[in-house]
């Protein structure tokens, strides 16, 4: 399940709903990762662009990997502006046993950072500035150059 929201995520509500959705699915482990905007470099917040068609296919390929291990993934992400101390990202893995979920959440979040078609901007002095130095070129980039 992939959920996109305009602005900040309502973390308690999402975690609670996901918990309740799977409460009787016989998963022994529910491991969420929550990304929150920190106060650093004088930013007022962050802003995100999302390209949904490729994000959905990227997510579905991970969901298939999870299913092969008897697990499922849920993910929520913000579009647009998210201010300091609000959250823009939740990923969670449900699996029968903890080891699969712990390993999966690590691999999933790392690939999310490297591959998911989402662009981040710092909100500073009323401007929206692309976070170029913190961004990663998707594998296979540069073929047109």
């Amino acid at each position: 399940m992939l959920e996109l929201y305009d602005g900040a995520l309502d973390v308690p509500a999402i975690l609670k709903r996901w918990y309740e959705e799977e409460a009787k699915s016989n998963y022994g482990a529910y491991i969420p990762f929550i990304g929150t905007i920190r106060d650093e470099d004088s930013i007022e917040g962050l802003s995100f662009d999302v390209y949904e068609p490729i994000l959905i296919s990227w997510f579905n390929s991970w969901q298939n990997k999870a299913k092969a291990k008897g697990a499922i993934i849920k993910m929520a992400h913000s579009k647009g502006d998210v201010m300091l101390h609000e959250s823009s990202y939740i990923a969670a893995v449900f699996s029968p046993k903890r080891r699969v979920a712990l390993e999966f959440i690590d691999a999933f979040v790392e690939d999310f950072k490297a591959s998911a078609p989402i662009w981040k901007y710092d909100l500073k002095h009323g401007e929206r500035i692309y976070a170029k130095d913190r961004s990663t070129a998707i594998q296979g980039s540069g073929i047109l150059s």
Partner: protein
Amino acid sequence: MVRVEFLGPIQKDPLALEITNLNELAKILQGDDELGEWLKTSAVAVNDTLVSSLECELKDGDKVSLLPPVCGG
């Protein structure tokens, strides 16, 4: 016509081009000063599937997207 889209922070309007493969697109975009460094760092998708080489035929109605470096979360 093939539609070419520039995603995220690449501030460029979409193009509509009469091209039949990605090699032709590469030549056109390499001559576009607006793109600067973006070509070196951007991934390419054809009809929303990422491609890893220029050996890709294009037909009328196809969509090519350029995806610059990402940072979700």
